[in-house]
């Protein structure tokens, strides 16, 4: 695969690639209804890296699951390239929070199962093998390809999860708090990996996070959610920092500080987390 290098601008222009149109989601359990998301509208351009941030319980993961097709919208629509999304599919690959590797398969086989499923008809056996190894190489996990998930660290598992998602050559890469369960150093390391891969492949990425620094460092835009229930899109912040970004240089960057401050103010002044009684 030889996609051109992602544009250096932080505003990839063009037609809306992924569009959420007035999406509402209500969960029914027994007689009671809970409205989780109300009237979410969002346009995401191709190759854009968008983070969704908000306090826990605001429906971030529900929103991701709607785009993934794992849950269905109550009203409204999710459109990918003008086609409605209503079931899961490999063109919207998900990196799950807790890696979700299959423990009875080796690292290689965990990626290979996805490759076989997506490219079983279009690639030969040798090509699929090479493509599996290529994706493991992207996340620097070739050395552990014959290990089982229980034999590698949490950060490594998440790398394999990313490799599995990338191997499907998705139109949109969905990441549900991908680094939430990792320690700070491992997380920083993986953020670098994701930035490199995004620069190289130019994927469209939606990432759920609750880490302000992570959101500012990685994103072109940050979508800030109000508190649930009935969460809405509170604000959308552009992060016009040039890429490639270096976390050490950014610490003193005025634009970075301004973006960081804006997100923090949104989360802790205007939409402070209210503990449920």
């Amino acid at each position: 695969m030889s996609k051109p290098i992602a544009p250096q601008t932080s505003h990839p222009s063009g037609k809306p690639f992924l569009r959420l149109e007035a999406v509402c989601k209500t969960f029914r359990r027994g007689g009671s209804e809970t409205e989780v998301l109300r009237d979410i509208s969002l346009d995401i351009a191709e190759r854009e890296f968008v983070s969704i941030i908000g306090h826990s319980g605001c429906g971030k993961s529900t929103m991701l699951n709607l785009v993934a097709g794992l849950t269905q919208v109550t009203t409204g629509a999710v459109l990918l390239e003008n086609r409605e999304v209503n079931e899961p599919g490999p063109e919207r690959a998900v990196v799950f929070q807790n890696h979700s590797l299959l423990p009875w398969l080796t690292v290689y086989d965990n990626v290979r199962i996805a490759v076989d499923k997506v490219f079983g008809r279009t690639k030969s056996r040798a090509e699929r093998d090479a493509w599996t190894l290529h994706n493991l190489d992207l996340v620097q996990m070739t050395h552990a390809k014959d290990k089982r998930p229980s034999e590698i660290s949490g950060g490594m598992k998440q790398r394999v999860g990313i490799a599995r998602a990338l191997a499907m050559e998705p139109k949109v890469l969905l990441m549900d708090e991908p680094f939430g369960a990792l320690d700070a150093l491992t997380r920083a390391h993986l953020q670098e990996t994701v930035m490199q891969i995004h620069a190289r492949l130019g994927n469209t990425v939606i990432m759920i996070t609750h880490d302000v620094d992570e959101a500012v460092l990685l994103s072109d835009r940050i979508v800030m959610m109000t508190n649930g229930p009935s969460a809405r899109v509170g604000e959308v912040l552009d992060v016009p920092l040039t890429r490639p970004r270096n976390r050490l240089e950014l610490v003193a960057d005025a634009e970075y500080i301004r973006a960081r401050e804006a997100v923090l103010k949104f989360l802790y002044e205007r939409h402070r987390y209210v503990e449920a009684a």
Partner: protein
Amino acid sequence: MNAPLSINAAPPRPVLVETAASRPPAAAAQPAPAPATAKQTVVPLPAPQRYRPSRAVAIAYDVAAAVVPPLVVLALMLLVWQLATSGPDATLPSPLKIWADSSDLITQPFFVNGPQDIGLGWRVLTSLERVAYGFGLAAIAGIVLGAFVGQSVWAMRGLDPIFQVLRTVPPLAWLPISLAAFRDSGPSAVFVIFITAVWPVIINTAVGIRNIPQDYRNVAEVLRLNPIEYFWRIMIPSAAPYIFTGLRIGIGLSWLAIVAAEMLTGGVGIGFFIWDAWNSSRLSDIVVALIYIGVVGFVLDRLVALVGRIATRGTASA
């Protein structure tokens, strides 16, 4: 292993020190030469002298620890049994009498003297063949039905109460129906084993399938696995520990049922042998047969457990 710990190292330059604790045991006998960089600053301490048994001795000790206690208990039990049954009006044979009456059965499992006068090994093999058919069918049907019940809420609601009632029916209660249906003792015995062993397999498989983590289901959905791929690649491996628990209970029940079924259907199995021996008052033979049954049942259980351990490698630990 921890970072090397240096006690006497002077601070001016970093010194890599090999301590006694980090040295391999083979080099522990003579004081190892201190590394060149640590010449002046580190005094090599003699390694603590500790008795380390050689590998062969350690293995022998482990084997003895596992084998000796049951042997001691067995000897005590035989002694008590001998004392309790050695009176003139004892109703059961003593161990010495059993040896005198039936030593040929114990020492020669595979003799053939006539159509009904064969070694217990042959009889056990005949019974095992029936168990293999009955249990094999039960394993296949149980896993398929269990998967169906486990992944469909409506199948569970419809079938689970019926399974729960049927599984309490004792094996022998199925025998008359089975004889009426098949009109032959061979298939009837196989059916009784099947119907006894199938319930724990179904129920455990269903529980295993119901407990497949949502994460794996999501992965399968994103990958768009079709039902057959989902069955082989997600369901079976994920539920394997539960399935093998069911199979292990099932093989135990099969072995219970075969003896009972053969008592009534006749033939050359170990169950019929006991019934035959009872009718001709050969109590010693019955005791020997009981020991055969116990040992074979134990081996079957361990065999299924071993297969399960190999098959679920990796699954259970993650």
